[in-house]
């Protein structure tokens, strides 16, 4: 199963298309503000989701590499906060466009699902 829910936490591990798309959206959104390395992206997603969403390494790095190959994000090696070289990812112009589309798409999807789930 793609989503394992343990103690009210959602662990994103083996990505399928739906979750992969969602993870892409989360990553794009997270680095929209500033360039970040993989570790920080995972931490930020965890914090922003109120400790609910945990992005496993197995989902995060393949997703980052795919987004980079798609030309939506760009990577560069910078010195990180603990004085080590880390690979920082930045949103590209194309990525920003994709982020907008994906956000709208997500909102439509979420609204549609909740309409069904909440129906009595």
């Amino acid at each position, binding site marked *: 199963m793609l989503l394992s829910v343990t103690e009210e936490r959602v662990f994103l591990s083996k990505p399928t298309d739906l979750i992969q798309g969602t993870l892409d959206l989360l990553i794009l959104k997270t680095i929209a503000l500033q360039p970040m390395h993989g570790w920080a992206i995972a931490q930020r997603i965890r914090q922003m989701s109120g400790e609910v969403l945990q992005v496993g*390494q197995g989902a995060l790095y393949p997703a980052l590499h795919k987004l*980079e*190959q798609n030309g939506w994000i760009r990577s560069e090696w910078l010195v990180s906060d603990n004085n080590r070289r880390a690979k920082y990812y930045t949103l590209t112009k194309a990525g920003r466009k994709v982020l907008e589309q994906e956000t709208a798409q997500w909102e439509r999807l979420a609204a549609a699902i909740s309409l069904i789930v909440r129906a009595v």
Partner: protein
Amino acid sequence: MRFANILRLRLRSLFSRNKVDQELEEELRYHLDRQIEAEIAAGRTREQARYAALRSIDGVEQRKEECRDMRGLNVIENILRDFRYAIRQLRKNPGFACATIFVLALGTSAAVAILGFVDAALIKPLPYSDQSRLVAVFESSPGNARSIVSYLDFTDWKNLNKVFSSIDAFAMNGGFTLNTDTGAEKVPGTRVSSGFFHTLGVTPILGRDFNPDEDSPTGARTVIISYTVWQRRFGARQDVLGQTVTLNEAPSIIIGVLPRDFHFAPYGGAEFWGTLRSSDACEQQRGCHNLM
């Protein structure tokens, strides 16, 4: 810009593999180290932290493999590996390999031959200007839907023609006897009406086309030669124009050379193009059908 960037990344993934792999390694190690630090901060011992972090990552090599998959690297690598495997298998089994290669070669050549024919006959345009307005005209009679015509019928058609911009003919009984220094020689060629090349839209690259009166009995006997003949028999000399050759015992003056790419399928290898003569024996009988 974006595509250039993507292309650059792809090529980098493919050709600087070591560097890309190293960077991947470093990236994942960085993550691992941060994870260990976080576990220590949460109060574990170094050993415990390391163990927990490794478990949370669940196989560094696997992660690397997934990243390579995402970069589209493994596709190419797997293809190469399959290819090598196939070669090994074929070498192990030469008989089978030969049979396979033979069958493939046979199939491929059959397909190429058919395509070659279809391409020449149906797809490529005719090598004449205005090829869509060219038609072949035949005589039809009961029992013979497409018959070639006699010279007298042709001249009548030509004189009464109101439908076509021009009508011209070539003789189906082609071929000449050429007198050379070493004796007589059969050469391919045919006789045409004087407007023949003009109707096809072909202009000689050297010299001139036939004059309108050159297919009349009183007109000068002139001949146009093909490019190959000009190269081979006349050494591609400019002064070939005005030279006299003896074709079918009649001296004829060379007045032009056809373009190199000129091709007329019914007389593919024609070397000499003379003019029709109403004085020739066949041309005087309405029943002697020799033109098209």
